[in-house]
C-alpha cells in the first residue's frame, strides 16, 4: 500500500493487517515511554484545508511517537490563500522531500488528485463528503478490540449520513469484514443508493438500533439547519437523536461510538455519552494507535 485514499480500495486482508499492527502500537502507546524509532528520518506533513483538532493532533502525535519530523500546514496560513493550486502545493512539499502527506480537504477526490502527482505517500484525513478512512479504521479497531472479529456484527449508524465521510468509509470497511452497517438519517440527510454500497437503510431509528452490537452517532452541523435540511436542533434531537431509551433497544453488550466532536444533547444525549458502554474516549486513543500503524505500514518499504 502506497497511499490510503479510502477504504473503498483497501482489501479485507489489508484492513486486518492494520488492525493487528494497531494492537501492537496500542500496547506501546500505553507504556510510559511512548517512543519508537520506525519513522526516524522521515517527514510527515499534515496539510489541512479544513479545520480539525482531533484528527490533526492524532496524526501529529502518532508521527512524533514514531520519531518522524512533522510539519503542519493550515490552509488559512498557507499559500492557498495566495491562490496556489493543490498540485503546486503538493509539488512544493515533494521537492522538500516529504515522505507522507496527510491531507484533509473539503472536496471529494482531492487526495486522489494529489496522489497522482506526488512521490510522497498520501493519507486521506477526510475529503469532502467522500471518505475518512483513518476514522473508519479506528472505529473498526474499537469494534475489533471489543469483539475480536467482525463477522455478523450489526453496527447502527445514525445521523447526518449525507455529509458524513465517516459513515461511508465505515460502510466500505464493515462490508468487507462481514459486518452489517444499518443506517438511519432524516431523508434530507440520506444520499441515494446507499444500499448499493452494501449498507442497509432502516426505515426508523428503532429499526436501525434494535439488536445492534454497536451504535454510532454522527455529528450534525448547525449550518445544515440553515440549509433547510431539518427544522431545529430540538426537533432533530427528539426524532433522530440517540438517548438511553434508544440504547435499550440495542444488544445488551452494545457499545456506543461517535467520531467527535459531539454536540451534547443533539445527536447523542449526555447520559449515553458518559455511560459505561460509551467508547468515545477509547476511540480517540485508538485513533493514535491506528495512525501509528498506518504510518509504519506506509513507510516501511
Amino acid at each position, binding site marked *: 500500500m502506497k497511499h490510503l485514499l479510502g477504504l473503498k480500495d483497501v482489501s479485507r486482508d489489508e484492513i486486518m493487517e492494520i488492525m493487528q499492527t494497531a494492537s501492537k502500537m496500542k500496547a506501546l502507546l500505553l507504556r510510559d515511554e511512548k517512543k519508537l524509532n520506525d519513522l526516524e528520518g522521515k517527514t510527515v506533513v499534515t496539510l489541512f484545508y479544513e479545520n480539525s483538532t482531533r484528527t490533526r493532533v492524532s496524526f501529529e502525535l502518532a508521527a512524533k511517537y514514531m520519531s518522524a519530523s512533522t510539519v503542519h500546514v493550515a490552509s488559512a496560513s498557507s499559500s492557498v490563500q495566495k491562490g496556489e493550486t*493543490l498540485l503546486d502545493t503538493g509539488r512544493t512539499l515533494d521537492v522538500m522531500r516529504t515522505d507522507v502527506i496527510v491531507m484533509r480537504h473539503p472536496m471529494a477526490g482531492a487526495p486522489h488528485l494529489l496522489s497522482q502527482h506526488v512521490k510522497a505517500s498520501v493519507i486521506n484525513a477526510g475529503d469532502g463528503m467522500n471518505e475518512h478512512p483513518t476514522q473508519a479504521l479506528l472505529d473498526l479497531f474499537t469494534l475489533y478490540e471489543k469483539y475480536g472479529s467482525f463477522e455478523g456484527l450489526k453496527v447502527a449508524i445514525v445521523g447526518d449520513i449525507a455529509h458524513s465521510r465517516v459513515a461511508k468509509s465505515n460502510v466500505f470497511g464493515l462490508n468487507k469484514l462481514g459486518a452489517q452497517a444499518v443506517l438511519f438519517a432524516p431523508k434530507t440527510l440520506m444520499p441515494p443508493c446507499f444500499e448499493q454500497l452494501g449498507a442497509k437503510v432502516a426505515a426508523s431509528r428503532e429499526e436501525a438500533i434494535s439488536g445492534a452490537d454497536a451504535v454510532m452517532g454522527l455529528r450534525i452541523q448547525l449550518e445544515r439547519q440553515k440549509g433547510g435540511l431539518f427544522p431545529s436542533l430540538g426537533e432533530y434531537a427528539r426524532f433522530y437523536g440517540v438517548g438511553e431509551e434508544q440504547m435499550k433497544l440495542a444488544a445488551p453488550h452494545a457499545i456506543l461510538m461517535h467520531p467527535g466532536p459531539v454536540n451534547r444533547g443533539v445527536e447523542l444525549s449526555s447520559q449515553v455519552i458518559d455511560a459505561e458502554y460509551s467508547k468515545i474516549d477509547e476511540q480517540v486513543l485508538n485513533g493514535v494507535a491506528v495512525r501509528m500503524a498506518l504510518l509504519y505500514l506506509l513507510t516501511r518499504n
Partner: protein
Amino acid sequence: MLIKNAMVQGKQADVRIEKGVIAEIAPAIKELTGEEVLDACGKTLLPAFVDMHVHLRDPGLTYKEDIASGSRAAVAGGFSAVACMPNTSPVNDCAAITSYIKMRGKEVGLTKVYPVGCISKGMKGEELAGIGGMQAAGAVAVSDDGKPVENANLMRHAMEYASDFDMPVLSHCEDKPLAEGGSVNEGYYSTLTGLKGIPAASEEVMVAREILLAQTLGLSVHLCHISTKGSVELIRHAKAQGVRVTAETCPHYFAADDSWVEGFDTNTKMNPPLRSKEDVAAIIRGIQDGTIDAIVTDHAPHHQDDKLVEYHLAAFGISGLETSFALCYTYLVKTGLITLERLSELMTKNPAEILRIPYGRLEAGAVADLVLIDESAEWQVDKNAFFSKGKNTPFHGKTLTGKVYATVVEGEIKYQNGKITEGAK
C-alpha cells in the same frame, strides 16, 4: 471543382461544384482542364454537419479557444456551420459583440460562424437583451446558455418578443437551486464518490416549464443538451400534443455514462452531467423515434489549468467538435440503432432548420457544404492532435469507427486528411 468517386446515397457518383453550389451529380463526370479534383476513393459524401451549440470563448476567454482555433476544430470535425453561445467575456448581449463574432468568423473563413445572442442583458435574467439589434448584426438565435432564465415571466416575454423576429429561443434547462454545488449526476456514483449530485429533476422541471410556456403561448422553444429519461418522456408527450418544441442532445449523453466519474477524472465533468445507463438508453430511444431532433457537441473547450484541479473546482464541459461524428457513427450507426441518413438529419438538416440557416443538400443547385466520411476507418482519439485549444475530452485513447476525411464549405476544401487546407488567421 470536381469530387470524383464518392458514394452518394449508396451509389458511386461524381459531383461538380461551381461557384460554391452543386452544379451536377452524375455517375461519371469528365474533368475539365485545370479543374481542381478531390478524389474521394469511394468515401461517403454527406451534407456537412451543422453544430447549433458550441462555445468558441471569443471574445475574452481566448486562452481556452478562439474563433480561429474553434473554426479549425469545426472543419476537422466535418462542420460547415456552428452556432456559438453568448457566454463569452463580455457576454454577447448586443449588436457590437455579435458583429465582432460574425466578422471574425468570416475573416478566419473556415466554418460559417453564427452567433447566438443573450436572452437577457448581461445574461442576468432581468431585462431582455436587444434581440432585434443582435439579429440585424447576424445572430440566429437567443439563449442564456449556462445561466438559465430563472424567472418564468422573463422567459415568457423572451419567447413572445423573439417570435416577432422569428428568432429561435434556446433554453438551457436547469433549475439552479436544485443543482447547486453539484458536479455529477445524483445517484449511485454521486454517493460512491462523495461528489455532490445534480438530480435529473433539475433539468426536468425546466423542461416541463418551457413546454408549458410554449404550449400556453402557442410559440416554439428549443431545449438544449437533453440528458435524462424524464426529459425525453416530457418532450415526447409534448410533441404528441402538438407543442412546438424541439430538442438536442450530445454524443456524450449516449456514448458515456455516470460510471465514468468514479476515478475523479475532471474531463468527465460537464453540465448537464453524464447520466445513468437508464438515461442513456432513453436518450437513444429518443434519437430513434424523433423525440430528439438534433445532435450537437456543446463543444466547451477549457485550458488545462481549468481542469487540473479538484473535481468540484474544475470547469464544466468537454471539447467535442473533433469526436462528434465518430462517436455518433460508432455508438448509433455501427450498432444499427439508426441509419446514416437519420444521423445526417440529426447532425445537419434538423439543427439548420431549427436555426433557419442554409445547409448542404446532395442535389444540384444546393450550396456545396459537404463532408466526406471514411466509414470504415478505425482510429484512436488523441486529444493532443486536436485543432481545438481544448484538450479536455473523456474519450482520449478510445478507438472509434468513422472518420471525417474532408470538409468542403461553399465549394472550397477547408479540411482534408488531417490538414486544414488554407491559411487560417
